[in-house]
């Protein structure tokens, strides 16, 4: 049993980063995720583990510092919120292209543009469909509790290094700002062996030099690189899908919701069942890879799916692709910084039923 603490989701990410033996955090403050850097600053990780904490001059600088640190095989991370993540997108595409492991945290706020500082889930497309240019994918983890904010830091780095791929934690202002109990594991040592053939460790006479780049002007070579990337993404899709089912066994209808919406929907399931609806909840934990296969299986036995997200309907497109016309699919959600209540979701579900 580890240490039990009461913490904000943002603080839990920061503490988990120190304990996971992360080598470097580069960031730039923005609400609602500033507590990540604030907590790190107050903890002085340079004294605890030797971890580097640096407030960059901009989001663009921070993501490029991540690129540099990741090139040397170090565990590097950054965090921001929606407008800041947009600024990082060029760097994220480069990291994906150069196949560098790293962790990017997005504590989503309402948009578009500078938007608002209240919670939102409107960055789903950006996180799972690209956001930056080119045919790339991030592994996207969606925590629904403060505990998962902590747990997904370690998991994120494990996946990032396993696949040499950037991993994103897609959270939002609710999970970032709320406090819950959280249990941390033991302090992990920082990595000391940098022995993989892609890591830049300083050229020695016994080996050729290494280059970390996303550039290849030879189109055929670039196509081959793309094919390798696609093969990797296929392996990820086959092996890394994670989800949770709540009350799905006897369900007539299933809501699909992630992150804070999944928490809200858990209460809706309870309210719905009190009023006689057999409603279940499927919570994707990985948004990429998406639990398409499981949704497709469930589509053979339920009457419909309602995607509940704090957006005008983004994940619903992936639900529709998975369901592939077998049963009806709808969307419910408040957005622009407004959080739907469990009761509002129930009304949304009842309206969906009547359609």
């Amino acid at each position, binding site marked *: 049993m580890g240490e*039990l603490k*009461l913490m904000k989701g943002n603080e839990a990410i920061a503490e988990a980063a120190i304990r996971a033996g992360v080598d470097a955090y580069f960031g730039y403050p923005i*609400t*609602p995720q500033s507590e990540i850097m604030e907590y790190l600053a107050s903890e002085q990780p340079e004294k605890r583990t030797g971890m580097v904490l640096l407030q960059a001059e901009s989001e663009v600088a921070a993501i490029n510092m991540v690129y540099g640190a990741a090139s040397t095989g170090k565990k590097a991370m950054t965090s921001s919120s929606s407008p800041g993540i947009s600024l990082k997108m060029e760097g994220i595409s480069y990291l994906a292209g150069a196949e560098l492991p790293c962790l990017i945290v997005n504590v989503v706020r309402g948009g578009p543009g500078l938007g*608002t*500082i*209240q919670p939102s889930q409107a960055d789903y497309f950006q996180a799972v469909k690209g956001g930056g240019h080119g045919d790339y994918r991030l592994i996207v983890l969606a925590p629904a509790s403060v505990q998962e904010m902590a747990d997904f830091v370690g998991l994120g780095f494990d996946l990032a290094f396993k696949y040499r791929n950037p991993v994103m934690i897609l959270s939002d*202002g*609710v999970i970032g*700002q*709320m*406090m*819950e*109990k959280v249990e941390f594991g033991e302090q992990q040592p920082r990595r000391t062996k940098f022995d993989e053939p892609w890591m830049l460790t300083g050229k020695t006479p016994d080996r050729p030099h290494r280059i970390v780049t996303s550039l290849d002007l030879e189109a055929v070579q670039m196509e081959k690189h793309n094919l390798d990337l696609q093969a990797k993404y296929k392996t990820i899709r086959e092996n890394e899908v994670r989800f949770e089912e709540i009350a799905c066994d006897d369900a007539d209808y299933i809501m699909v919701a992630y992150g*804070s919406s999944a*928490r*809200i*929907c*858990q*209460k*809706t*399931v*309870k309210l719905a069942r009190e009023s006689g609806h057999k409603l279940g909840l499927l919570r994707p934990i990985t948004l990429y890879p998406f639990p398409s296969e499981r949704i497709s299986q469930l589509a053979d036995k339920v009457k419909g799916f309602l995607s509940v997200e704090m957006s005008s309907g983004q994940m619903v497109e992936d639900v529709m692709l998975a369901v592939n016309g077998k049963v009806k699919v709808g969307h419910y959600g408040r957005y622009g910084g407004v*959080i*739907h*209540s*469990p*009761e*509002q979701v129930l009304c949304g579900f009842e309206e969906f039923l009547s359609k």
Partner: protein
Amino acid sequence: MMNEEIIIAGFGGQGVLSMGKILAYSGMMQNLEVSWMPSYGPEMRGGTANVTVILSNERISSPILNLYDTAIVLNQQSLDKFERKVKPGGVLIYDTNGITKHPQRTDIKIFQVEAAAEAARINNLRVFNMIVLGAYLKLNNYLKIEHIVEGLEKSLPKRYHHTIQANADALKIGMDIVKPYTVLVS
């Protein structure tokens, strides 16, 4: 099953968020599941601040709620907003300071705690929120003063630990001065 859903609302600076935090810590000390969800944003500056605290012996589902078992309100705006959000049969606790339009509902239990006046009387405005919390303690038997003191020890930085006694005394004052309020039906 124990499941208590609370909203605490008032002006920014009244200690609303820290009151919620102490409540959450106290619940945690008793192995309850807890969640603390603040309102955050521009509304906090000089405006209203509120926090939703849930204490439960089961896994907590939604940290965001529409209706509450207990509302603790410390200004008129919060009273206007949250009186109607108390579940029928639920509890509303409010400080009468600055209140010109009193609660109207007859299907909930209403209590007054003159915490601002009492804090001024004992010349320690900083324990205002603990007086309010004392009122809440008096009306619930799942939390004891000892739990709150443990919560204070856990949530206050060490340099403020000398204030714990004054805070504990303030809790007792709150327990003493809380009184039921009956809505007169005309």
